[in-house]
């Protein structure tokens, strides 16, 4: 029962994080493209497409986690995204590029990447890592395990 509670709590928290993250980016595609460009990781030709699509992927992912649908895919995707963001942060910190995080806001100079943003990302990774374990590794198919009604009869 406790495991069930933790599982659903983690799922909803991670879902909310992605919803918060996509909101400003969806509103300001031009500014977000600037953020993506500044990371200097993607070829120029992929910058705009990423800026257009990524926020919507975050939105769909957040909704999927919160409403408990397509959970295995959502959990896998969430982990992949967070690992990618985390690597991008670390890589740019390591090479000393002074870029704004663009994690939750697209305003230029809003939040520079630093150790705090890395730690914050790590805490998200812990949550998503736990979900990965609970939903995909711990045995029973996630969809069954995650469904609210069945959880209560267990």
């Amino acid at each position, binding site marked *: 029962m406790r495991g069930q509670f933790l599982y659903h709590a983690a799922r909803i928290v991670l879902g909310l994080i992605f919803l918060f993250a996509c909101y400003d980016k*969806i509103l300001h*595609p*031009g500014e977000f*493209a600037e953020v993506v*460009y*500044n990371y*200097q990781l993607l070829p*120029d*030709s992929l*910058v*705009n*497409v990423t*800026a*257009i*699509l990524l*926020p*919507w*992927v975050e*939105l*769909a*992912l957040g909704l*999927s986690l919160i409403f408990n649908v*397509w959970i*295995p*895919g*959502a959990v*896998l*995707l969430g982990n992949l995204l967070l690992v990618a963001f985390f690597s991008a942060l670390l890589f740019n910190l390591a090479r000393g*590029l*002074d*870029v704004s995080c663009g994690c939750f806001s697209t305003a*230029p100079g809003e939040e520079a990447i630093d150790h705090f943003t890395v730690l914050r990302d790590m805490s998200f990774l812990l949550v998503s890592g736990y979900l990965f374990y609970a939903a995909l590794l711990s045995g029973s198919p996630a969809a069954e395990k995650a469904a609210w009604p069945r959880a209560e009869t267990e």
Partner: protein
Amino acid sequence: MPAIIAVACLIGLAVNQFRPDGIALVGDWSQDARFLDAAGDSLVVSIETAEQLFRQERALFVDARSQREYAAGHIRGALSIPWQEVDRYFIEMVDRLEGPHTIITYCDGETCDLSHDLALFLKEMGFENVRVLVNGWTVWKQGGLPTDEGG
């Protein structure tokens, strides 16, 4: 997972297509396209031209980085107008900005926007002949051109 991505991408593309502030699928991120003035003309000056103007003493360099970075090293003869405190420094330096020279702003890093912001500000303040040397401090040093410390 493919379903989530597919749905999101379709919606994302559709919304971008129809919203008034949608962006091009493939953007032009070249230097000339990124550093524009209010009229849409490129502000970028090449390192070769910048060097030439420097040798002919027809350039006035303006460092848009912080005072601390300026003190650690800057282009020889450059003024310091940190973008963070532009109002204060601008009033102090305004007399020295006047003249027949080309004002060339710079900061450090391919993606540094301080010099661009400063150049737009100076243009707005009425200085016509303003240029940006992109990634200025780095390319100046790489070219082995004269620098100063302190200030």
